[in-house]
């Protein structure tokens, strides 16, 4: 089995030859080829080279176009701060929707329009070519809560849930349509799996998650499925309070960050849900040893049971010792579901 086949087998509920291995790498991958992160995030050729290098060198089963949450916001005209060797960041003080009334004038950017979204789409196409069907190609979009936070400013958005539910509904609806269009362009370019990153969803608590966020995440998952792609959902941070909701979204892969124990996710989501994760990227993976990393992966596997994909809780941090990452991969390669 090659990597692509291995991931597909897991997603279809068939036994792969060994556990799929899918840790998120961005800055780590960029450093590996000696690129500046600015170039990784803004030039799809650099990203593709780094992704191919990291996936082949460490024997991951996938490659991904994920770089930073700012692609969509940038194309909408938001103010973004760029740094030479750090991820671009949204300029929250000058948030695009600091004035809520601007929402009605926003138009969905053309994902082929030559902006940052188009760059990502090209990345998906190039990775599809370069991976020759050996690795699964993952596209990436932002979830409703994360993208809304990027556009509105996260501090303001958090209060909007109480102040202006109607605005939230309008904003989430806009985000949904934009992200689905972005996903479609990436799927058309060759992405078979779409990652949805909804970081801010871990901050809102179970009530607001259920009432406002979940319904839009659900629509997003369903719409991406309708495009013919599988879905990996990643919510950064502590999701313990919303695990059962996440389990009802119908995601092909739930990618857990480290604050939520795998066993809790398994109990909340049932035996069928494929779970990915969730070593603490800093404490376990960067600061550990190959032996402790291997043991931490084994513990995640034990808690997850057979429907399990090897990975860290979040992005592999840039100064992670390569031997530690190799140990994580080795765990996957040496174990069957």
């Amino acid at each position, binding site marked *: 089995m090659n990597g692509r086949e291995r991931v597909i087998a897991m997603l279809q509920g068939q036994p792969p030859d060994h556990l799929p291995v899918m840790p998120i790498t961005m800055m780590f991958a960029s450093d590996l080829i000696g690129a500046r992160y600015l170039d990784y995030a803004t030039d799809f050729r650099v990203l593709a080279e780094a992704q191919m290098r990291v996936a082949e060198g460490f024997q991951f089963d996938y490659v991904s176009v994920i770089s930073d949450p700012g692609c969509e916001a940038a194309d909408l005209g938001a103010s973004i*701060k760029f740094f030479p060797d*750090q991820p671009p*960041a*949204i300029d*929250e*003080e000058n948030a695009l929707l600091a004035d809520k009334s601007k929402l009605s004038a926003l138009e969905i950017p053309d994902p082929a329009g030559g902006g940052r979204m188009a760059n990502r789409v090209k990345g998906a196409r190039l990775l599809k070519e370069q991976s020759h069907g050996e690795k699964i190609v993952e596209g990436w979009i932002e979830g409703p809560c994360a993208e809304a936070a990027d556009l509105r400013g*996260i*501090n303001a958005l*958090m*209060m909007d*849930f*109480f*102040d202006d539910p109607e605005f939230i509904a309008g904003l989430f609806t806009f985000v949904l349509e934009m992200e689905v269009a972005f996903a479609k362009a990436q799927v058309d370019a060759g992405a078979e799996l779409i990652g949805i990153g909804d970081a801010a969803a871990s*901050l*809102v*608590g179970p009530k*607001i998650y259920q009432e406002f966020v979940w319904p839009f995440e659900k629509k997003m998952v369903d719409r991406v499925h309708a495009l013919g792609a599988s879905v990996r959902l990643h919510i950064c941070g502590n999701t313990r*309070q919303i695990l059962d909701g996440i389990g009802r979204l119908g995601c092909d892969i739930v990618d857990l960050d480290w604050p939520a124990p795998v066993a809790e996710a398994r109990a909340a989501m049932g035996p069928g849900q494929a779970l990915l994760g969730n070593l603490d990227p*800093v404490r376990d993976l*960067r600061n550990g040893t190959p032996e402790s990393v291997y043991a931490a992966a084994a513990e995640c596997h034990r808690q997850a049971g057979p429907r399990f994909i090897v990975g860290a809780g979040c992005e592999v*941090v*840039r100064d992670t010792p390569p031997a530690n990452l190799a140990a994580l991969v080795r765990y996957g390669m040496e174990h069957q579901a």
Partner: protein
Amino acid sequence: MSIFDELQQAIIDGKAPVAKEVTERALGEGVRPAELFPNAIVPAMNEVGRRMRDCEFFIPEVLIAARAARAATDILRPLLVGDEEVRSAGTVVCGTVKGDLHDIGKNIVAMMLESAGFQIVDLGVDVPPEKVVAAVREHGANVVAMSALLTTTMVNMKAVIDALAAAGLRDQVKVMVGGAPVTESWAQSIGADGYGKDASAAVETARSLVAAA
């Protein structure tokens, strides 16, 4: 319900207009501005901190409660000037360190400190050490409170401490640090005077640092 309870409840419920109205009414009834802090605002924010720790409150609830507390303190602050009996709990210069744009936690900490009676000089995010030094000088701050959420920017807390030392201010000001990746032992290792795991702890730490000074 006493007027103190009313204000406390309005803050916990995150109702800024109510908090404002009750504060004004209290003043109209002759309550001294300084009395509202220990009897309503501080206990309200303590309760908010407790609910956050116990996962009853999440970020949205905390932010609207903080906003309601601010509605009250905005009215009270100017009135406290000249009140001989109240001394400010101290002046805190706060900010998120250079390279780091995360400010939700820092904002909550600042608001809790403010409702506990501290004067806050908030320098925002991505704050270079020089700016902290300048603010400490200008405001004669007692405490510097730095936040970092990235393992890559935590090191910049040390840079702040070094800059304060280089400016000859290190003995005049206490430094406390926090943020998700920051730990007590890390705080010690960079020579900080205090650490707080969450916003309520930040208030306790600030109080004890000022008391010890």
